[in-house]
């Protein structure tokens, strides 16, 4: 609550030199968007594969890799992406490297929730479709996935909420800066970094700014959780 007095229109929209955290908010929203764009389709695809076509040794390997990735300390993910993308491929701290690092955290969580929501769909629903002479892929797409939809939406939103607050992988990838979005291959600001940096500053005003940023981040995560609630109320109604 120490962040509350900080909040003003200026604070939300101005760049750092104007005493605001606009770039960080923008950066975090861009990161969430980009990461979702990369991570959600890949995660859902992997989860569908594991749940519906996962009766072989490739899937067993994939499941193990997935489990290991889920447990990976996020700083290690950051360092890896730093090594591969930041140094070798782009040669620059960049927004896209941050999104890729966060995707590595998002994909296994989404894959896992997808697999679990699909497993909750009773097998007789699949059989009903297959017995009509519907192809397996079509059954998965048009019968099983819709039946698992609310679980998927809930799980995915929660996963996104979780990566929104990640700090460690961002230090090594987007670095953070004082400006609004400069391009995908340029460093970028983000709320977790803002909070982290501000909290290390001696000036009281900057620390206060950190509190404000923290509040905003909490609000973003909270709104994702509220979206989850709404999604699951929708499920109960049905």
């Amino acid at each position, binding site marked *: 609550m120490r962040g509350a007095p900080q909040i003003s229109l200026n604070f939300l929209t101005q760049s750092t030199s104007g005493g605001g955290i606009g770039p960080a908010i923008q950066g975090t929203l861009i990161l969430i968007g980009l990461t979702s764009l990369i991570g959600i389709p890949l995660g859902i695809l992997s989860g569908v594969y594991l749940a519906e076509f996962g*009766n072989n040794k490739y899937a067993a390997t994939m499941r193990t890799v997935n489990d290991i990735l889920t447990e990976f300390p996020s700083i290690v993910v950051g360092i890896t992406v730093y090594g591969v993308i930041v140094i070798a491929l782009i040669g620059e701290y960049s927004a896209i490297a941050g999104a890729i690092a966060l995707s590595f955290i998002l994909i296994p969580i989404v894959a896992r929730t997808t697999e679990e929501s699909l497993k909750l769909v*009773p097998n*007789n*629903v699949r*059989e*009903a*479709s*297959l*017995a*009509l*002479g*519907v*192809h397996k892929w*079509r*059954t998965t797409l*048009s*019968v099983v996935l*819709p*039946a698992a*939809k609310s679980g998927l939406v809930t799980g995915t939103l929660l996963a996104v909420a979780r990566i929104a607050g990640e700090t460690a992988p961002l230090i090594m990838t987007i670095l953070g800066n004082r400006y609004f979005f400069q391009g995908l291959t340029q460093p970028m600001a983000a709320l977790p970094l803002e909070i982290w940096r501000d909290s290390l500053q001696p000036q009281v005003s900057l620390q206060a700014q950190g509190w404000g940023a923290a509040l905003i981040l909490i609000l973003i995560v909270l709104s994702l959780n509220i979206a989850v609630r709404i999604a699951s109320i929708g499920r109960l109604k*049905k």
Partner: protein
Amino acid sequence: MTSMNSTQDKAVNQQPIDLDMKMQSIGLNAWFGAKQVLKDINLNVKANAVTAIIGPSGCGKSTFIRCLNRMHELVSGAKTSGQVLLDGKNIYEKQVDPVQIRRRVGMVFQKPNPFPTMSIYDNVAAGLRLTGTKKGKNLDEVVKRSLEQATLWAEVKDDLKKPGTSISGGQQQRLCIARAIALQPEVILMDEPCSALDPIATAKIEKLVVGLKRDYTVVIVTHNMQQASRVSDYTAFFYLGALVEFGATKDIFEYPKNPLTEKYITGEFG
């Protein structure tokens, strides 16, 4: 005359294809993993008739009918050997696509299983939509005709947009029958379709089954002896994975040849 008869008999023995027979299993075996659950089943399913499969729990009735539309192999570790002929052609031949077989041989399950995310209408239309075979067909008409054949139309015609799971169990089962009929299969397999239903709903389905044989060939698994005698023309008695006796329903119930069959239908075990 005698010689002619014997040559005919011989011809039947040598050439198992009989046009009156919609489906035939020949030396059919089935396994779950290492466990063999069907042993050398030779059974003829007559066209436009109802064939009942009876037998104690676990004797392989469900497995047998799931071999008739290649659903058995979907269970991991499950396999079969032997032949199943549909119109004289082996459905287990390498080049045969099981998906196509399932369109010709429909199935109704023990527990009503309408698609939970679909309306009544969409449930019936699902087969045509998801198999990409709705071209040139008037969906509204197909849905109406299928629901009529399943004797459900009058009860749901004003609620077609309601979820398929919002109606009663008996209605859901008739919805599943309508869903199967919509694809106009040649054979309809039913696995204890009434076991989850009350007597009134059961009576409705029994009546419907008898009506179905005008257009379809029906194979129905049942635990209920009275039901078998009421609805079927032929009855097969399975025991421990083997076909013990097969014949006209009347004969099986009135003059069972095998003492096991007699014991079972008189309720001595099962």
